[in-house]
């Protein structure tokens, strides 16, 4: 993977890295986040591009592909996923793998999982999954998901797991299974205990990346955009100098810094949702014709060695339009 080439202009109509970055800056959609000591700052990616390429770890985040959805908000999520893959391949850096933060499918049907796997194969990278609530709608409450993706990561319980890459510890948490009425999203005591054990042996200087489907912070609880027992989980991550939390579920980018922890939700590749509390309900949002691609996107995350920073680049599908 180290010899994966950068992406020059090609006959797909994709544009080169520098041209894309310029275009992103021009469109105002590309913002690079640098997180250091718990304080986030941002700059346009055009100026960021002047910096030397990272020699550390790069990876991609893709979220909420919702294959099987076909309503007005986006009648063809397969097409926009293909476009997302093309964008991801054109991003700067050489990503080592992909994190998919859930809602792979719309209705948990095997053929929808098949389609997602087939399209994501085009990236030629390992894909690490967590399920969204749309991926656990089968009669087995997620058995289809777990049978398909659990073995690769030796997932425990409802599907949680961890792995290490380039000195970073990655933790996949599940907060979409076993939800109770009148409640919200939860991790559950078993998973939180597993997390405590999982990180017990790590040095506090180890960068931590946590990913889950539903936000692990209170974005908007009346719409279920939170995880009620997340604070108990983060108690076990307090001692670490750098904790980055990646979520999906709400189909838009929202960020927050809380002490050593930075939280980032991601765009969907399928359809947008309203801003928190705007409108009667958090259903699929139909935007004016021609604007859909400006609200869909993918994300690149970059660890800069020696700086202990994670840089996060969110890019919409409209950036090269």
């Amino acid at each position, binding site marked *: 993977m180290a010899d994966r080439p950068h992406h020059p202009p090609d006959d797909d109509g994709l544009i080169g890295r520098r041209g894309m970055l310029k275009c992103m800056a021009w469109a105002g959609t590309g913002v690079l986040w640098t997180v250091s000591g718990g304080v986030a700052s941002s700059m346009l990616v055009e100026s960021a591009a002047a910096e030397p390429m990272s020699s550390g770890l790069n990876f991609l985040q893709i979220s909420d592909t919702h294959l099987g959805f076909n*309503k*007005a*908000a986006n009648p063809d999520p397969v097409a926009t996923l293909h476009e997302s893959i093309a964008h991801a391949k054109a991003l700067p850096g050489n990503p080592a793998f992909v994190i998919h933060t859930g809602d792979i499918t*719309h*209705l*948990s049907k095997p053929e929808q999982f098949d389609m997602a796997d087939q399209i994501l194969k085009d990236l030629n990278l390992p894909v690490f999954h967590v399920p969204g*609530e*749309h991926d656990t*709608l089968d*009669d*087995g*409450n*997620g*058995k289809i998901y*777990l049978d398909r993706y659990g073995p690769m990561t030796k997932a425990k*319980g*409802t599907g949680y797991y961890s792995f290490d890459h380039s000195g970073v510890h990655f933790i996949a948490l599940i907060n979409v*299974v*076993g*939800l*109770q*009425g*009148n*409640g*919200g*999203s939860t991790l*559950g*005591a*078993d*998973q939180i205990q597993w997390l405590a054990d999982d990180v017990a042996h790590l040095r506090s200087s180890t960068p931590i990346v946590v990913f889950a489907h539903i936000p692990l912070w209170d974005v908007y609880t*009346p*719409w*279920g955009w939170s995880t009620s027992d997340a604070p108990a989980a983060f108690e076990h991550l307090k001692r670490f100098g750098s904790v980055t939390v990646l979520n999906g579920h709400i189909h838009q980018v929202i960020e927050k810094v809380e002490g050593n922890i930075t939280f980032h939700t991601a765009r969907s590749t399928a359809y947008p949702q309203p801003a928190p509390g705007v409108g*009667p*309900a*958090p*259903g*699929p949002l139909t935007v004016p014709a021609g604007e859909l691609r400006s609200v869909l996107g993918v994300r690149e995350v970059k660890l800069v060695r020696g700086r202990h920073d994670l840089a996060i680049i969110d890019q919409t599908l409209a950036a090269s339009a």
Partner: protein
Amino acid sequence: MFRLSSHYPYLIAGGLVVAAIGVTQAPSPAQAADAGIVAKIANFAFAPPTLTVHAGGVVTWTNADDDPHTVVADNGAFKSHALDTGDSFTQAFATPGVYSYHCSLHPYMVGKIVVQR
């Protein structure tokens, strides 16, 4: 805590024996004392949030949202499949009592069926 294999959709809880009948097994409206009460799922809410039926009554929920929802009894007595846009779920209520339910995808969506004699 939440083992995938431990879910039983048909539970007998709190001493109430509840007939948990899926769509295909629901009695026809002619057989039901309180047939065909219609509930709506729209804008991520059950409407009306509380419905009163007589014992033997049947309730049918139809999803009007562009997002799927489910109808799941809090005590596990009944559970629909995921209802996509336009899909319906019918449940008979044989035994008097109060049945609280929610959407398992969006558990803040809650409703109640009051079954009277």
